C-alpha cells in the first residue's frame, strides 16, 4: 500500500512547496500544452483563410473584383458571379434580424427585470434549448410544418393586406427568402437573447433606482434607465446574431428555394453563399470549384468582419463600468 502511494506520479499539483524538479517540468509542460491549444485555434483560422485563398486563385485571377458584382452563374459558359448570392445572404439575414432582435430584447428585458425570480432560470434554460436543436432538424421542421402554414395561411394574408408593397407581391411558393429568414430568426434567438441578458444585467442598479426615485413607471425605467444605457451593448448582441445568421447553412438551403434571385419579392426563392457552396461542392471541379472557394472567401470575409465588430462593441460595453467574469 505504502509503495503504491509513493509511486503515484508527481504531476499532481504539489501541496508541498513543490521543489521536485519533476513538478517544475510538469508545470512548464502544462503551460506549453495550454499555449499550444490556444495558438492552434488562431492557427486554424489562418489555415482556413490560406486554403480559401489558394483554392479561389483561379477564379480571382479570371474575374477579379467583377466577381462581386456579376449576376451570372452558368456552368456551361463557365461564367460565375457572386452578386445574387450576396443579395440572398444579406436579405435573409436582415429579415432574420428584424424578427429576432425585438423578440430577443423583449425576452431579455422580461428575464432581467420583469419575470418572477422562480421563473427566470427555467425560462432561460428553455431558450437555450433552442440552440441545442441541430440546423438540419430546423430545416426538416420548416419543410413539413412551417412551409405549409406559411403558404396556406400567412402569405396569402400578407399579400391581401400588404400587397401594395412590392415586398409582398409575386407568386407564393412556400419556400423563399421570408421563410428562410423566419427559420434563421428562430435559430439566432438563443444567442441574441443570452448576450442581451448579459448586457442588461450589467446595467448598474443605480440607474434603475435613480429612475424609480424620479417617479418613473416600470416601462419608463426600462426605456430610460436600462435600454438607453445598454444601447451599444444590445447593438453588439444584434450584430453577433447577424454574424451567426450569415453563416447558417443547412436549414437555409432546405427552405430558401435555391434559385439565384435579386428582386423585391420576399416570397420568391433565392439562394445564399453558404447554401450554394453546400449544394454544388461535391461535383465541382476546376474554375467552378475555384468560384465556389471564392464564394467561401466572400462569406468568410463578411462573417469575420461582422463578428469582430460585435465583439468589440460588446466588450467595450460590458467591461466599462462593471467587472464581470468572462
Amino acid at each position, binding site marked *: 500500500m505504502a509503495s503504491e*502511494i509513493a509511486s503515484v506520479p508527481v504531476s499532481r499539483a504539489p501541496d508541498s512547496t513543490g521543489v521536485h524538479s519533476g513538478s517544475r517540468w510538469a508545470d512548464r509542460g502544462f503551460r506549453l500544452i495550454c499555449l499550444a491549444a490556444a495558438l492552434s485555434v488562431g492557427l486554424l483560422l489562418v489555415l482556413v483563410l490560406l486554403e480559401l485563398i489558394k483554392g479561389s486563385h483561379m477564379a480571382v485571377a479570371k474575374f477579379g473584383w467583377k466577381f462581386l458584382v456579376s449576376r451570372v452563374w452558368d456552368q456551361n459558359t463557365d461564367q460565375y458571379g457572386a452578386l445574387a448570392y450576396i443579395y440572398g445572404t444579406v436579405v435573409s439575414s436582415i429579415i432574420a434580424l428584424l424578427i429576432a432582435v425585438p423578440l430577443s430584447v423583449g425576452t431579455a428585458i422580461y428575464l432581467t427585470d420583469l419575470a418572477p425570480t422562480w421563473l427566470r432560470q427555467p425560462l432561460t434554460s428553455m431558450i437555450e434549448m433552442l440552440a441545442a436543436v441541430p440546423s438540419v432538424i430546423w430545416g426538416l421542421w420548416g419543410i413539413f410544418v412551417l412551409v405549409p402554414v406559411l403558404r396556406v395561411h400567412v402569405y396569402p394574408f400578407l399579400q391581401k393586406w400588404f400587397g401594395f408593397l412590392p415586398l409582398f407581391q409575386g407568386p407564393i411558393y412556400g419556400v423563399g427568402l421570408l421563410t428562410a429568414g423566419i427559420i434563421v430568426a428562430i435559430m439566432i434567438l438563443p444567442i441574441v437573447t443570452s448576450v442581451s441578458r448579459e448586457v442588461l444585467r450589467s446595467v448598474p442598479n443605480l440607474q434603475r433606482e435613480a429612475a424609480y426615485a424620479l417617479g418613473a413607471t416600470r416601462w419608463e425605467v426600462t426605456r430610460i434607465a436600462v435600454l438607453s444605457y445598454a444601447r451599444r451593448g444590445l447593438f453588439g448582441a444584434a450584430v453577433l446574431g447577424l454574424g451567426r445568421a450569415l453563416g447558417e447553412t443547412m436549414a437555409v438551403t432546405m427552405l430558401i428555394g435555391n434559385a439565384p434571385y435579386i428582386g423585391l419579392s420576399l416570397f420568391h426563392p433565392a439562394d445564399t453563399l453558404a447554401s450554394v457552396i453546400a449544394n*454544388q461542392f461535391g461535383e465541382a471541379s476546376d474554375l467552378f470549384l475555384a468560384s465556389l472557394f471564392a464564394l467561401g472567401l466572400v462569406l468568410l470575409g463578411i462573417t469575420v468582419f461582422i463578428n469582430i465588430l460585435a465583439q468589440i462593441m460588446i466588450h467595450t460595453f460590458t467591461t466599462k463600468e462593471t467587472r464581470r467574469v468572462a
Partner: protein
Amino acid sequence: MKSLLKKSSRLAVAAVFVLAACSQKSPVVSTAQAQLINGAGSSFDNPAFMLWKESYAKINPDAQINYQSVGSGAGIKQLLAQTVDFGASDAPMTDEQLSKASGKILHIPVVAGAVAITYNLPGDLKLKFDGPTLASIYLGEITKWNDPKIAALNSGVELPDTSIIVVHRSDASGTTFIFTDYLSAVSHDWATKAGKNTSVNWPTGVGGKGSEGVSGQVKQLPGSVGYVELAYATQNKMPVAELKNAEGKFVSPSPESVSKAMSTATIPDDFRFSMVNAPGDESYPIAGASWALLYQKQANARKGKAVVGFLKWCVTEGQKLSPKLDYAPLPDSVQQRAAKALDTVTY
C-alpha cells in the same frame, strides 16, 4: 485502501475500453482473406449498388464492398485521384476528364433508368407531355397549367387555372444530365439558353437537394412539376406523366420502356452513349444509363480481380434484380459486351 479501489476500478474501465476496441477491429468475415473494395459516385445507382452488395456478399463472402453515394462528379474525381477502386457516373466521362487519368478508364454500363416527370395537381389527373412543351415549361415560357399547348396534348382533361411551379435539382446530378440532354435534343432554345450538364443555369423554378428534395417539394407545392428518377416517384406514390417519344407515341416510364430505348440505341465499343429520345415505338424518351468506371490496368492484382468479379456479376446475374428497383435490366447483347470489356482488364 481507497486509492487501491480507485486504481483498480480505473484499470477495469480501461480494460473494458481496450477489449471493446479490439473486438471492433476483428473482421466480420471469419476468414482472414476479406477483400475490401471501395466505390463511389452516382446517387442514381445507389439503390442498385446497395442491393447488389448484399446479394453478392451471400455468394462471395470474401469481398466487402463499400459504396458511397456522393454524386457522379465526386465519383469521377475520386477515381482520377485513385482513392476508390471504381467510380460510378450517370454522365460518361468527357475526353478532357479521360486525358487527366493516369491510365485508360473503362466505362461499364450497369443500370439504365428512367427520369420521370411528376406533378402535383388536384384530382387523379393523367397528363401527357412532349419534348418542346416540357422545354417551354422549364424555360418559363409556359406559366399556367391550362395553357393551350398543354391542353392540346391532354384533350378531355380538366386542367386548372393555376401557375406552374417548376422544381429542379439544386445540386449537381446525373439525373439532371439525362434530363437536360433530352431537353437539348428536343428544343434548340433550351440547348442555347441552358444546355446540358450535371448542373445548369435554370431559367426559372425552385431547387431541391437530391431526387428526395425534388419529390419532397413537388409533393408539398400544389401546381408544381419536377423530374425525378423513376424509383422515387413510384415509392412516393406520385403520378408520372406519359411522354411523346421520337415516333410520336406516348409512353409511360417503366423498366420495359427503358429497355426498349436501350435496345435501339447505338452503343459504341467504349460504351459512352446517350439514349435520350431513342427511336422505337415503345421507347421512353428520357432514359439514361449509368456506368461503373475502373482502370483497365489494375494496380493491385487481388483487389483488381475482386472488383472485376463483382462488376461482372452486377452486369450479368445482378441484372435480374434490377426491375425490383425500377431499373431496366441491360439487354443480353449489352451484358455480353460489358462482360467482355471487363475481361480486358489486366493486373
